[in-house]
């Protein structure tokens, strides 16, 4: 790999951190707005449910998301504050469908200690000011003037240093906050302050309440007429106001989220750490609070945010499981639950660990993640591309074409599958046993190759061969009419629809026929100057049986032409450029937009927008799909039309949000495809590949496919063992009511069914920390090695752990050896036929020794001290790369002769690491806990020991995501002869559920893309005025420096979303044609 890296998101964040409901997109629209860390999603409430409108990338990690209504406004504005101290106020302009920045700013202070409990951002209910608590001891105020404009911000000293929550109170003549805080004796209190905007200071508020629940953590302000605040503790809930105090005990629980139900604030939904949803009711009489009541409703995902939507529907946003749309029923179901889950929204977060495997052995990586936490823990199998689920297959060599035909025009299903070979045509049909068997259509000529077949009107079928066009009755199967090619001419290419046939003979003759009831009539003939290579008359107009346009691909001048039908007048001629002839053309329409697709002999595909009334071709784009000629065919799946491009790299072309997308099909090589929708195999495709005819159904048409395997417990480590075809995980199960609330396991799973097939329970207090599959020198067996730690409540750092060596025997985990360690085994690596362990501050090497009794044991060989905590270790040859808790990356070397491990070099920065990976011999990749990525390089050529002992930082980048794991591998099938196939990649998984790809580029490509990125920065602005350059700058407590040697693939690939004008603008700035830019960027999208 290299130091020039391209970082791109394969799976966007799905961890829902914030949500709110309001009238954002218009005064009449009710919107649900969701924050997924670095993205905001805007949904519209409709009779059909939640309709997603927009996904808005934000150049920052969202710390606060609030809707508010300024004085005199008819719709809400959106306030967003980011963790790096930027904020913006956004307004939706429904006329232009644009997000307009009303205000923005920087709220950082030069001096200040960032709050431990996260940032707090709140807006006064009467819209007099925005309050921010970003640094200990300071409360920042951004005042509004009476026109709703923001004014210069100022700080107020806040005496309370350990703040747990701050909210504005409703119904106060002066803006008033209530502060929930902990004192230096760990007691918790609530206090109110009025904010005096004139004096820029606090004035003692109307009330305070001391000695609250020790677990009090959340404030809920109550709107008028009741006003006051609810203080949610772990054992009590308290209502407080200037003149009332009510408290109720609750079942011990930690409330993670709340959502107000009634505008008057009399009911609230509370979600706790176990996923229990409860309803908190404030009972009141004559606007006086008389008491509190709490009712459990049922179970949801563990909520991080709750938004009441409308008509008893509620959105549950989750960080630990899938987010949900639920309905609150008035009557309980059989299990006594009032909650009905209606929709689930996939969340991969937090991805704690993952592995890359090729389960189907097709050369394509799949990612299996440890996702979710607590009861919502799961494994997720993430796969790129579209799968074909094989239903049947037969060996058939030399297929030259395939078409499906119906036995009558009104039939819903296809009956016949016509398969054409070089010197014959065979017909397959479904028999009564739903088996495919060979049959005959008497009227068809079976001794020659078919060029085209089609269903025709009036219960007829059409067959085109090199000498004639045959019209056959689909009921009697007899020939009804035949059109013969003029003598001396043979038909080279042909195409047909239900009423028309277009064919070309040698010498550039184009002939147009129309189909009647038993009649084939030659309507028009045209002589073109060159030979014709391909044709299409797929109807895309209003009449599904008839086309007004014909597309024709030409030899010699390498052009594609549009003719009008029936008169065969040339209306457009588009030279394709280059020397590669078009091999397949297709007229098609997606989402109401008409296109002409044109596939070339070298695996490139051109697409044009087609004006169906003028025949004009515009917006030419080129992509590379493979290296072999492509055949294009349409097919339908779930009532939507897509295009299948058969080639050495089969691809489905589809449209989403009016943009053409290309998704790999997970098959190696496909020569022909035709839809085959039979009663036995509905919605299927017939696929000719590598001497085989396969009938299969197709996956949903989308890029990434995710399969969930709920575990009901939290998987923390995963690894795959090819030999035993199993996965092993370290997991823990929470059982809050038991004496030991956590139990840890090593579990074995079948890699096809994902069922638990064996379990090894760990000791009390023993955590599974790491798992690998490995083998040792002089032993042919493969083992699972597990590193553990005894986490005792009285110890700061574990002082004891174990290494357990398991074999899989008869599908069971058999403990073969165990070794006690003096600390937590954070990491294990197979290393030179031995086992390398990271144990607290030490790196320790164990050899696998055969004892006299024939059993094996792990024996310590050598070690290396000098880390704070060696958490992440990767090895390559004799080199060991260590990611330390707080001392960045160091490089060690194992010296065989001396049997010793020595330090070779280190990075002297104080990075708190979260993952490391070795990119190549000299370059190492690290992720640290301020959400940055960096690369360091070994300096072997340094003049002095000091220079050689220093790892040079060569790349820095702010990802904005917390990476838990890197793994070499690829999500897409790597074809050695494709350009993209040469680019090495590393996959990463993050807490927000992002799966990303880091690709190492050749230098020239990096330079080119860097130029493209800087041009794109000028065209695609940051939402809310946030700067892309600042967002991607490497930033932690110690320093902030510009990003270098990393490119933002998400920004670069959004080039493809631009309209033509903007593309032109970028193209001019970069000095490269739009077509070339599209092609190069499209290729990059195929990395993930």
């Amino acid at each position, binding site marked *: 790999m290299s130091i020039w890296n391209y970082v791109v998101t394969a799976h966007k964040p799905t961890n829902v951190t914030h949500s709110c409901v309001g009238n954002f997109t218009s005064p009449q629209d*009710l919107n649900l707005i969701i924050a997924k860390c670095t993205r905001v999603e*805007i949904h519209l*409430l*409709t*009779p*059909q*449910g939640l*309709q*997603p*409108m927009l*996904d*808005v*990338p934000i150049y920052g990690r969202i710390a606060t998301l609030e809707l508010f209504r300024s004085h005199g406004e008819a719709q809400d504005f959106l306030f967003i504050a980011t963790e790096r101290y930027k*904020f913006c*106020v956004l307004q939706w*302009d429904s006329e232009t469908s*644009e*997000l*307009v*920045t009303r*205000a*923005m*700013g*920087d*709220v950082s202070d030069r001096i200040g200690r960032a709050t431990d409990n996260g940032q707090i951002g709140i807006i006064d209910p009467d819209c007099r000011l925005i309050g921010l608590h970003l640094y200990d001891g300071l409360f920042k105020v951004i005042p509004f003037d009476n026109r709703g*404009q*923001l004014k*210069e*911000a*100022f700080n107020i*000293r806040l005496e309370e240093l350990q703040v747990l929550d701050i909210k504005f109170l409703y119904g106060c003549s002066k803006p008033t906050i209530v502060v929930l805080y902990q004192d230096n004796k760990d007691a918790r209190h609530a206090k109110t302050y009025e904010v005096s905007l004139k*004096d820029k200071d606090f004035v003692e508020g109307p009330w305070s309440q001391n000695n609250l629940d020790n677990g009090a953590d959340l404030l809920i302000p109550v709107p008028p007429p009741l006003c006051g605040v609810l203080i949610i503790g772990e054992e009590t809930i308290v209502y407080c106001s200037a003149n009332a105090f009510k408290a109720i005990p609750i079942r011990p629980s930690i409330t993670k989220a709340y959502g107000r*139900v*009634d505008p008057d604030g009399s*009911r609230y939904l509370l979600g706790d750490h176990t996923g229990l949803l409860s*309803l908190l*009711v404030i009972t009141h009489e004559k606007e006086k609070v008389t008491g509190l009541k709490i009712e459990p*409703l049922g179970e949801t995902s563990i909520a991080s945010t709750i938004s*009441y*939507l*409308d008509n008893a*529907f509620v959105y549950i946003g989750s960080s630990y499981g*899938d987010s949900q*749309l639920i309905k609150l029923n*008035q009557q309980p179901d059989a299990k006594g639950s*009032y909650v009905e*889950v*209606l*929709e*689930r*929204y*996939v969340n991969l977060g937090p991805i704690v660990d993952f592995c890359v495997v090729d389960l189907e052995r097709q050369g394509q990586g799949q990612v299996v993640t440890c996702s979710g936490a607590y009861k919502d823990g799961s494994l997720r199998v993430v796969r790129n591309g579209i799968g074909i689920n094989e239903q049947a297959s037969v060996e058939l060599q030399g297929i030259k074409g395939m078409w499906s035909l119906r036995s009558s025009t009104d039939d819903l299903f296809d009956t016949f599958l016509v398969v054409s070979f070089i010197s014959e045509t065979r017909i397959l049909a479904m028999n009564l046993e739903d088996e495919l068997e060979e049959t005959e259509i008497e009227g068809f000529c079976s001794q020659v190759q078919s060029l085209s077949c089609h269903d025709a009107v009036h219960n007829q079928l059409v067959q085109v061969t090199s000498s004639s066009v045959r019209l056959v009755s689909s009921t009697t199967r007899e020939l009804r009419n035949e059109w013969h090619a003029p003598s001396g001419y043979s038909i080279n290419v042909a195409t047909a629809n239900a009423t028309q046939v277009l064919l070309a003979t040698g010498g550039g003759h184009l002939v147009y026929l129309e189909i009647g009831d038993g009649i084939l009539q030659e309507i028009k003939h045209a002589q073109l100057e060159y030979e014709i290579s391909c044709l299409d008359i797929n109807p895309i107009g209003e009449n599904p049986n008839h086309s007004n346009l014909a597309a024709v691909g030409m030899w010699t001048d390498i052009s594609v032409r549009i003719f009008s039908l029936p008169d065969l007048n040339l209306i457009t001629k588009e030279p394709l450029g280059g020397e590669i002839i078009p091999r397949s053309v297709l007229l098609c329409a997606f989402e109401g937009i008409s296109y002409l697709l044109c596939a070339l002999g070298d695996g490139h595909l051109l697409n044009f927008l087609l004006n169906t009334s003028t025949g004009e071709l515009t917006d030419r784009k080129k992509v590379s799909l493979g290296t072999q000629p492509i055949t294009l065919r349409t097919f339908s799946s779930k009532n939507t039309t897509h295009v299948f491009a058969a080639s050495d790299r089969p691809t489905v072309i589809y449209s989403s*949000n009016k943009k053409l997308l290309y998704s790999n099909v997970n098959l190696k090589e496909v020569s022909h495809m035709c839809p085959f929708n039979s009663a036995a195999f509905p919605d299927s495709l017939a696929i000719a590949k590598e001497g085989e005819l396969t009938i299969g159904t197709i996956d*949903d048409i*989308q890029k990434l496919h995710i399969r969930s395997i709920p575990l009901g417990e939290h998987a923390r480590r995963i690894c795959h063992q090819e030999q035993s075809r199993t996965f092993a995980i370290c997991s823990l199960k929470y059982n809050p009511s038991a004496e030991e609330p956590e139990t840890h396991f090593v579990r074995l799973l079948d890699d096809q069914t994902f069922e638990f097939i064996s379990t090894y329970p760990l000791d009390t207090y023993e955590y599974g920390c790491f798992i690998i599959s490995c083998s040792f020198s002089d032993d042919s067996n493969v083992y699972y090695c597990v590193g553990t730690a005894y986490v005792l409540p009285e110890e700061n750092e574990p002082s004891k752990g174990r290494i357990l060596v398991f074999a899989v025997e008869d599908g069971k985990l058999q403990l073969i050896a165990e070794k006690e360690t003096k600390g937590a085994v954070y990491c294990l690596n197979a290393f030179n036929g031995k086992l390398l362990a990271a144990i607290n501050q030490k790196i320790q090497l164990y050899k696998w020794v055969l004892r006299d009794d024939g059993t094996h044991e792990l024996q310590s060989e050598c070690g290396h001290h000098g880390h704070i905590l060696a958490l992440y270790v990767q090895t390559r040859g004799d080199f060991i790369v260590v990611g330390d808790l707080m001392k960045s990356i160091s490089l060690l070397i194992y010296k065989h002769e001396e049997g010793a491990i020595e330090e070779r070099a280190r990075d002297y920065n104080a990075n708190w690491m979260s993952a490391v990976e070795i990119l190549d011999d000299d370059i190492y990749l690290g992720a640290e806990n301020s959400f940055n990525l960096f690369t360091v390089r070994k300096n072997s050529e340094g003049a002095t020991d000091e220079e050689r002992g220093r790892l040079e930082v060569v790349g820095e980048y702010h990802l904005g995501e917390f990476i838990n794991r890197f793994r070499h591998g690829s999500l897409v099938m790597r074809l050695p002869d494709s350009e993209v196939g040469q680019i090495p990649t590393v996959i990463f998984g993050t807490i927000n559920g992002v799966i990303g790809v880091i690709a190492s580029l050749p230098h020239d490509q990096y330079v080119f893309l860097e130029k493209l990125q800087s041009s794109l920065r000028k065209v*695609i*602005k940051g939402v809310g*005025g946030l700067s892309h350059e600042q967002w991607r700058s490497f930033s932690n407590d110690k320093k902030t420096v510009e990003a270098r040697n990393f490119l933002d693939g998400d920004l670069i690939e959004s080039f493809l*979303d*631009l309209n033509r004008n903007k593309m032109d603008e970028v193209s001019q700035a970069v000095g490269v044609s739009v077509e070339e830019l599209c092609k190069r960027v499209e290729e990059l999208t195929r990395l993930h």
Partner: protein
Amino acid sequence: MDSVLGNWPSYDPHNFSQLRTSDPSRSSKMAPATYHSIHNRDVPPADQVINTEHKNILLREIYRRAEEKLTPKRAASDNLIPEHGSKQPRVST
């Protein structure tokens, strides 16, 4: 239970009325379009680019107190304030 579990707020009775309850074990897959800010309204009016006042809280407090003390005297000796109010660089001779 019934008494608190009914009468859910309704802003538009049509919302969710035609929701087709798909199998909840299958996940919802609708993906919204990605928004790109390609207009010139990403920058707010100049007066709406907000920063924090530079004056330190302590100085602000001192000035405020000083102002409070000086206010009653202001009528008598307006022109004296600069001389006594703050330090000024001495012109070296």
